[in-house]
């Protein structure tokens, strides 16, 4: 049986002494389930809790606990994050739990590339890439944002003070990684924050 691989096949880098304090790591194959429906529904909240162990995030927020989480994508859409192997069963369980309620749950684990960003200069790097306010205090832990880097759609969220995830469609994986790596090169610190 073929093993799942991520689009960027484990690329990783970390800032050196002259570069920015940022680590870039291919997160590898990650479980991702798109869940659309009424986000105020108690049944949906229970299904999310069951699948990823967190409550339904508020507008432009991401709730994470123990490597699983839920990200707010739109007024009627969440992206659930969980281990790759758990996604098919979780998708089926959500379908069963929300049977009879208008919804859509789909395992889209292979649709995107996930890159893990660590370090205190992540806002510095992302602010060079996307038209989003990342000044201190503007994007606290638990924030999530869909936006674009040039022509490609991306979404990123802040799981902890120095821990972020960014996703883009799978075929843009190398482009996204190269762009982030170039933005984090030595001498690349803008220093406005």
């Amino acid at each position, binding site marked *: 049986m073929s093993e799942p691989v991520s689009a960027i096949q484990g690329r990783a880098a970390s800032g050196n002494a002259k570069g920015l304090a940022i680590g870039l790591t291919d997160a590898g194959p990650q479980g991702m389930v798109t869940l659309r429906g009424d986000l105020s529904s108690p049944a949906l909240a229970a299904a999310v809790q069951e699948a990823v162990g967190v409550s339904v995030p508020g507008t432009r927020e991401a709730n994470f606990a123990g490597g699983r989480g839920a990200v707010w994508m*739109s007024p009627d859409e969440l992206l659930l994050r969980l281990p790759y192997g758990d996604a098919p069963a979780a998708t089926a369980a959500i379908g069963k739990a929300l049977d009879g309620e208008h919804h859509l749950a789909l395992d889209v684990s292979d649709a995107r590339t996930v890159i893990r960003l660590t370090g205190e200069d992540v806002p510095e790097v992302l602010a060079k890439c996307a038209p989003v306010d990342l000044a201190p205090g503007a994007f606290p832990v638990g924030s999530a944002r869909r*936006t674009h880097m040039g022509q490609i759609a991306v979404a990123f969220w802040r799981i902890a003070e120095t821990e972020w995830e960014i996703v883009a469609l799978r075929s843009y994986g190398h482009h996204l990684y190269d762009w982030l790596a170039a933005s984090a090169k030595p001498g690349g610190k803008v220093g406005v924050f």
Partner: protein
Amino acid sequence: MLLLTCPHCGVSGDETEFAPGGEAHLKRFGPGSSDGEFETYLFYRRNPKGVHFERWRHAFGCGKWFHAARCTVTMEVFGTYPADVTEPPAELVETIRAKRPEWEGF
């Protein structure tokens, strides 16, 4: 560059995050309408110099459609509101009147 605030997700984003959808509040004429009405629906637009109501989509964001009122001369955005209405909200009309007393109205 316009800065638009999406009424669905609250993001005040650069114009580059949004996709324009043309004039808002068009009355649709479909099967059974006269040729004249259908032509008007398809091709006739106000194209005003001044206050304009437009459709926009938060394409690189929450993906939802909304409406925006802006001035085509100064690019000032008077406000945004959800797309599920047939005319602009009363308070937005008031805001525009206060800023553009010469405006002929919606």
